[in-house]
């Protein structure tokens, strides 16, 4: 991404779904700061929300003594999102394809598909000392990204 960094946002929460309200509040702040279109803001919010829920439920196994961290930053032409947990409950390789006929009626397993459908880059890696790090990048249309 280009060097023109804008304000960045960070939040660390205990692994409880109730903490998602704080996540949504931070996303709201970020999309306003970056002047994202309503559509872009919607899909960014959904992708971040899915990744944080994954970190809480699958990475940290909903253990409130473990934390999940969200970082959102922008270079002006792209948004970079990093989600870290202290577990590592999955890899992309062992996530079943939810669009496979055999999985269509399953109640879960669609979060990663949603993230990958919207984001331009999605990388999952191990953190030093344990845990997973999910990095996502969404390139913004137009110079100001405010379409």
């Amino acid at each position, binding site marked *: 991404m280009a060097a023109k960094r804008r304000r960045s946002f960070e939040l660390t929460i205990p692994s409880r*779904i109730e903490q998602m309200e704080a996540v949504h509040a931070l996303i*709201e702040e970020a999309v306003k700061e970056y002047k994202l279109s309503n*559509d872009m803001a*919607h899909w960014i919010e959904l992708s971040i929300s899915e990744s944080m829920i994954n970190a809480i439920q699958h990475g940290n196994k909903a253990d409130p003594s473990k934390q999940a961290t969200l970082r959102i930053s922008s270079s002006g032409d792209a948004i970079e999102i990093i989600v870290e947990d202290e577990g590592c409950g999955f890899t992309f390789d062992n996530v079943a394809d939810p669009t496979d006929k055999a999985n269509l*009626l399953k*109640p879960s397993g*669609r979060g990663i598909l*949603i993230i990958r459908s919207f984001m331009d880059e999605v990388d999952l890696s191990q953190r030093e000392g344990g845990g997973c790090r999910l990095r996502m990048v969404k390139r913004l249309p137009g110079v100001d990204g405010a379409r």
Partner: protein
Amino acid sequence: MELAEMSMLLNPRRLDDVVILDLSGRITIGEGTLVLRDRIRKLLAAGDQKFLLNLADVDYIDSSGLGELVSSFTTVRSQGGQLKLLNLTRRVQDLLQITKLLTVFEVFNNEAEALKTMT
């Protein structure tokens, strides 16, 4: 996005033997999915079998919300009933397209047309 907008509201109405559930707000992990699940199960227990979910005012569904729609669909179907969707917003339509759930649900843009199919 105010906190009041984070939850989902559900308003049931009845046309003959079809229960139309007008949903508004967000169907997300936690309260949003539980509200839908509880209502469908209570209506099933009371003998209702035909459900039309009106999503005209639902602009945000997460993967848990999608999962709840699927669970409701399979629960109703397993009891011999029908559950169909009405008035998807563009974003929800896109989400059902991405996840191929448009191949699972019958979707309508017109309430009268939907009701005609619920025999």
